[in-house]
């Protein structure tokens, strides 16, 4: 009786451990699935379109005749919006981080941080609406030549959305700067802003750089804001007041209609998806590597 009970418990244990392990493997399966799906749909695409045309071509017109598949305009649009967003997020996120880490009392911080986090929790489609119906008219009022769909409005609003991310990462880096460094500066007669700018800032610079890289990565993958506010016209322009198209917005444009499976348009969203996946992966890895590096500096 006793013996059987122990054996039953042991079998149960083995079954459970394997079930749990199986669910852990699903996350690995997801990664393999992503790479397999993007890769397997891209292969026929690159059978039709040469890699050379894809990389060096200057026109992206898959939905018109003649079809051209030069990805440069999409990359141009993607990075233009992402860099505007990352700059906005860096300026205001860094300022917020200085305030929270160096100036705010614990009480103020406990109220302000959750408020700031709300920005990160608002669905992106809401930001898209805000960019299109509120920010764009303001930009058009200041610069009347602005087109309704433009990179600037999408970039600014996306930047606002990413502020909490930059702020949190930078603040973590600033809090990791040892007290002794600050106190040494104070004892030499430094003022508070001098400590913030000349001690805390340089010591936390790698964390701040990481937050900038991660925010670009986040902005590159952002979809709904650019789909609503930045337009659907792939363009090789550096003018943020013009319409552009990002990689993500192109995928959305194709997906809105019922594109038949196996067509070149269908394959093309996987090809640019693969590009997007690697762009964000590389930036995430660099960002994480920088964070990892600074985490060790003061240990």
């Amino acid at each position, binding site marked *: 009786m006793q013996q059987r009970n122990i054996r039953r418990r042991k079998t149960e244990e083995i079954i459970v451990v394997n079930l749990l392990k199986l669910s852990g493997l699903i996350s690995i399966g997801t*990664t393999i699935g992503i790479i397999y799906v993007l890769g397997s749909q891209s292969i026929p695409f690159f059978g039709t379109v040469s890699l050379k045309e894809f990389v060096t071509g200057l026109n992206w017109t898959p939905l018109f005749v003649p079809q051209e598949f030069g990805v440069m305009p999409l990359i141009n649009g993607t990075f233009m919006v992402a860099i505007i967003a990352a700059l906005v997020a860096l300026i205001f996120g860094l300022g917020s981080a200085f305030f929270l880490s160096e100036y705010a009392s614990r009480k103020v911080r406990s109220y302000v941080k959750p408020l700031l986090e709300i920005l990160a929790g608002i669905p992106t489609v809401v930001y898209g609406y*805000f960019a299109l119906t509120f920010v764009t008219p303001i930009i058009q009022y200041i610069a009347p030549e602005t087109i309704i769909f433009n990179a600037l409005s999408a970039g600014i609003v996306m930047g606002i959305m990413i502020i909490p991310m930059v702020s949190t990462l930078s603040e973590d880096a600033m809090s990791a700067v040892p007290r002794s460094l600050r106190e040494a500066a104070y004892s030499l007669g430094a003022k508070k802003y001098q400590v913030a700018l000349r001690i805390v800032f340089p010591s936390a610079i790698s964390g701040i750089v990481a937050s900038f890289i991660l925010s670009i990565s986040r902005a590159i993958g952002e979809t709904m804001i650019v789909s609503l506010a930045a337009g659907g016209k792939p363009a090789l322009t550096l003018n943020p007041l013009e319409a552009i198209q990002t990689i993500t917005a192109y995928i959305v444009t194709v997906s809105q209609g019922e594109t038949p499976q196996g067509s070149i348009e269908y394959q093309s969203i996987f090809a640019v998806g693969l590009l997007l996946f690697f762009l964000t992966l590389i930036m995430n890895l660099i960002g994480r590597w920088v964070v990892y590096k600074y985490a060790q500096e003061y240990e």
Partner: protein
Amino acid sequence: MKERLFYLLILSSILIALTSLLILLIDVVFDGYSYLSWDFLTNYASRKAEKSGILAPLAGTLWLVIITAFCTIPLGVSTALYLEEFAGTNILSKIIKINISNLAGVPSIIYGLLGLAFFTYFIGLGKSIIAGALTMTLLVLPIVIISAQESIRTVQPSLKEAAYALGATKWEVAKKIILPHSIGGIMSGIILAMSRAIGETAPILIISSLVFITTVPSSPLDRFTVLPLQIYTWASFPQDEFRGIASAGIIVLLVILITMNSLAIYIRWKNQTDRY
């Protein structure tokens, strides 16, 4: 002087961030409140803005969240349990951990492509609720796993050791000690993950396309739309009335999300105060 200037600069940057949140909320409420009515909640979408409602997307969102929760909760919690309590520090658990943090950084639209190629076409689920929910499961799984791991780590080792001393197996400890003691944190993580699923537009758009739906889905294999997707459709129309109902939809969406987030915060708070 410079001290004051610096303080003003950083104070204004955080104030600008918070003010833009306020402006966004005011803008949406201002544009949309006059379109809110009982009819708006119980009508289907229509070619005419004033007759349009969000019944179909509300039903779609409800279906989606229920199925996503049903799949995510067991998978997320068991992965977290495996990583924290069973795997130790073997190679597999290391790979899984790195992999999960990488997955958390993959853009949501990529999950949409995965779902389209795998669930919709390869498995043959079509552009159905279940295809959307399974995709959403993969998308929010890292959130659930990471928050469940954190909450499992807070369980006091002395409790576990007492159980082991009485001869309990690992699974018995997990079932009777760890889960009951970390359930609050796990729950609040699940609610946050579900609110993420409710607000996501891109993957659903990829899988479902922009469809005009005027029925409440009756099975998980039906075609569907969700609230943020309907908002996107309306917001992309140039007419002011459609923008109005888009913002009325946003108000409903935000009310749902705020309610869920408050619930998550309440559960976490209650759990903390109960324990000590």
